[in-house]
């Protein structure tokens, strides 16, 4: 299934957002997530199914001004 992760188009089988984080090796407690522009809280990741063409954001803390 083709999805977009942080702007990269790729082919993944993860059925939920939680699966994706795990298979991609993101540490769930250090990142925040959004799907198709909408924030997905930590506890909703497992219940968030991914579909063809979904755009997923996985972000973590960085320097800022």
């Amino acid at each position, binding site marked *: 299934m083709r999805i977009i992760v942080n702007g990269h188009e790729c082919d993944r089988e993860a059925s939920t957002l939680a699966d994706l984080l795990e298979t991609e*090796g993101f540490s769930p407690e250090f990142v925040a997530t959004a799907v198709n522009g909408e924030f997905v809280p930590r506890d909703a990741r497992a219940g968030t199914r991914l579909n063809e063409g979904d755009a997923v954001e996985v*972000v973590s803390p960085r*320097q800022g001004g």
Partner: protein
Amino acid sequence: MVRFYDTEVASRFLLGTARYPSPESLAEAVRRSRAEIVTVSLRRESVGGGKVGHAFWDLVKDLGVKVLPNTAGCHTARDAVNTARMAREVFGTSWIKLEVIGDEGTLQPDPFALVEAARELAADGFQVFPYTTEDLVVAERLVAAGCRVLMPWGAPIGTGRGLNNTYGLRLMRRHFPETTLVVDAGIGAPSHAAAAMEMGFDAILLNTAVATASDPPAMAEAFAEAIRAGRRAFEAGLMEETDLAVASTPVFGAPFSPFAG
């Protein structure tokens, strides 16, 4: 003490964490700035990752300061709102420095998207620190949206031009005597920061002028001193400027004067 919503801090200097030559330089700059609040951001994590963000987050936590996450780089209210929500979850704070960029050349805020996002975030329980211009009407809308802190620019981000429109800033301070006003962006030298504090602004937020100095930690301390100086001067009551000279040394009794005395 200066108030940011229900929090009071002693330091009137908010420092950014970007563009330092090294993490050590950043850490030392924060220490010498005596800042109690630093700004941070969220960026995409690299696949297989979590490490980069992790390391930075640990560094910041070790500094023992409050964090003010920003929405830097957002160009729409929707992106800003969702970035704010992600920030609240990761950083565990409802504070958000709301930036919605409206023009690439000046990085000036988009007043329309800014007000819209501020409304939505305030309704969602955020404590919003909006990065705005000196426009009084936009500022009124932000206050109406629930903002208790306003952050007008001194000059465009990263320019170091200082206070580009002192007249406008002066009027803004007069117009909002009760709101916490932070001059954010464009400050290039301690004298600029001191001048803003002398006008009665509550605090200063800056990043580039410290991070890109030859010696960032020393520059951080310089700004800290200047901000304290400006505030102290504001409270100590500055003299009135006059047009003609007035002798400081007593005129009466000068030696060799033809007059008795």
